């Protein structure tokens, strides 16, 4: 499998962080950065990553299905909206934001819009408790999110397309 130039570069950079005999360490980072770059993790990618770090594809799958940010086999949308409802956010309106997002987007937990643009996930604590309720869209944090702010964010996503 040939990878885009930039991802290929990222691969060498990541694998270079570990002693050659332990390049298996690169497994999770390789998968996550591939998912970011390619939008999804495919069986071909699994085989490719297995080959790069010298393990069996099953060993990649074991790891892949363990981590909740790695989505396989079903990919998430281009914009992945993650709403925290864990305890600090729960106390400050997280669940209400979740309801709102579900309604606004017509999506449920880990569902993707038909055009593949937006997906929604109710996530566990994202480390923003003191600035709750918090959400993440892809890797961007949004703090002290109000229903109005959420509306605005979701509107922006549609326009970004």
């Amino acid at each position: 499998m040939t990878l885009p130039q930039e991802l290929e570069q990222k691969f060498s950079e990541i694998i270079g962080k570990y002693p050659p005999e332990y390049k298996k360490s690169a497994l999770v980072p390789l998968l996550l950065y591939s998912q970011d770059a390619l939008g999804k993790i495919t069986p071909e990618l699994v085989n490719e990553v297995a080959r790069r770090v010298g393990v069996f594809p099953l060993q990649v799958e074991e790891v892949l299905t363990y981590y909740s940010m790695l989505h396989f086999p079903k990919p998430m949308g281009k914009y992945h909206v993650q709403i925290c409802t864990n305890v600090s956010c729960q106390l400050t309106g997280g669940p209400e934001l979740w309801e709102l997002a579900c309604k606004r987007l017509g999506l449920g937990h880990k569902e993707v819009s038909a055009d593949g643009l937006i997906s929604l996930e109710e996530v566990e604590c994202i480390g923003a408790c003191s600035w709750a309720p918090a959400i993440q869209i892809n890797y961007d944090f949004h703090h002290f999110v109000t229903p109005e702010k959420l509306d605005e964010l979701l509107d922006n996503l549609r326009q970004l397309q």
Partner: protein
Amino acid sequence: MADLVKLTIDGIPVEAAPGSLLIEVARRIGKEIPAFCYYDGFSQVAACRMCLVEIEGIPKLMTACTQPVGEGMVVRTETPKLAEARKGTLEFLLTNHPLDCPVCDKGGECELQDMVFRYGASESRYVEIKHHHDEQQWSPVVYFDPARCILCYRCVRVCSEGMGVNALGVVQRGAYAEIAPNHTDHLECDECGACIDICPVGALTSDTYRYQTRPWEMNHVGTICTHCSNGCKTTLGVRNDQIIRGNNRDRSGINGEFLCVKGRYAFDFNESEERLTTPMIRKGGKLEPASWSDAVRFVAGKLKQLKEAGRQIGVVGSGRVTNEESYYLQKFARQVLGTNSIDHERSGDVVTLLDALAGRANALATVDDLYRAKAVLVIGSDLAHQHPLLHWQIRANWRHHAAHTYSVTAGPVREDQHTVAAIRAAEGAEMNALEQLRDKLSAESELAIVFGDSVKGEAVRQLVSFGDSLGIPVKYVCLVDYVNSRGAMDMGIIPELLPGYQSAAAAGLPVGLTLPQMLANEHLGALWVVNADPLRNTRLAAKEAFVIVQDLFLTATAQQADVLLPSASLYEKLGTVTNVCGEVQRLTKAAQTMGAKADLEIIGLIAKELGMASQMGPWITDKVFAEMQQVVAGYNVPLPVIATGGAAQTLPPAVKIGVETDPALIRSARDTQFTSGTLGSYSKKLDSLLESPGSLYQGENVLALATQ
């Protein structure tokens, strides 16, 4: 050795080597600490939390499966608190278990059932919905029912650690974690079935045994697997003369619980509808059924007539019959028929090795030695595929004792996962390549050398001198093909040698024909083939020769028979066989096929018909064995050892054999796990697995171990 540690377990004072695990030490004194995930010989996982014990001075309950003994430790393994904890854990375990014991194969042998019985966690307070997953078929033999799985990871470990195959893994996490096969929805592996047997519950089941019976409805007969030369003990589950299951869960025998795909599944040839059950006599060019007495009378008459006419009679023995049968056959050939033309398909140069080692004690490795030797060298064989038990032993040796492994082979082999040095050398070129290892090998404290059929004749002598030159104790294994290939050699099923490696020439016997010579001899009067198929790809030159065949099946050779005598399989016989390491083991009769007779009995009946019964002696295995003990050098093995299911190794002859055999006659059939000469081809189960890997030197599972 370090001083023993003193501790008390349930008030009983015990001593144990430092570092021993509490669970093992407790077992030794009869305290069975419950455990699902603990399995001796494999890595610790401490996942099931059943083995918790109380240790004085430690407030937390500790897992006996990971806790090493400590001086003065006071341990309790059964207290109300522990019973409560175990009951609680069982209750958790049962929440998502389907509780389908009545239809589960494991019912009656299930460790979960036993545990629930013991701790009384039979009442369920769980009223929520269970999550359900459908059963999956992973291979023609392996089924997986995820709902029954308790995630003890035994299967994963036996596959990766024990077999080196790594075909099973764990996917997803938390309550949804599941065992998964290496190819998304199916397995590509050795199909050894070890995962099924090691499963404490009925999550992994085998196609051969599923829904067949209940364990208590079977007889459990311990005997020796009939397929390859490794000689694994197998416990056959038999109901109404039908073999339903093969395993070795009681770990008796040289193989412990190990069995390969053939041992575990390829017993179904025994009840193949193609089994011969009636003697046949060729009439008007066609084989017609006959009674045993007619057939035996016909054979005897013909043999007598040909002998009197001074015609050459060729006898072909095999590595698939017992020692007693081989011994009796050669005796009959040489003493009754007066022919020394007796041979079999030779698969390893045992003769040269024994000649080179004559007079030495401790020069032949046992199966157990391969588990204990500090270093092992494998030459010219892909053991994982050809000699699965030996591979298992060597791997276990590396795992448990960090043994050094070396391989000199024509292609990648599974030992490469852990070899100190792996050298690629074409067949026949191994001896030259060996020099590269000299320095490393001489630095070892001892060595076991296992070599295949590409090392033969002069090369065997070179190998032994090489071994001698290392200046360390060296033991050898000469690889041979079939369950009693070694025994056939020992019993003199070759024209050059009498039983026990006595020179036939020195005993005044005429020069006999070798197998290729018999087949090529246009003047041959008769060819008598006992459980072999020499005509599968050769034509018999003597077109008029009278052909007698004893076999289970209508093989290519059998099709050319003038008289066909149905013989019993090894699972239907008594007697002994000698494995690749020269270890003698005893068979137990497990089943019976109506119409077929043991080869020993067939030969006996022919002898009787010829009026030679008293000269031949009774065709009773124990009587023949007693005679062998007297006559066959090396076979004076203690009967009690083998009668109780043990293995006794024969020694090399005391003096040089002094007889040259032609190395060209030696050629292994190169069978793999998924093929096995004649018998395997009649196993439907093995046949269904042929798609799976198993060709030699593919190294399909060989990956850098750096990743472990």
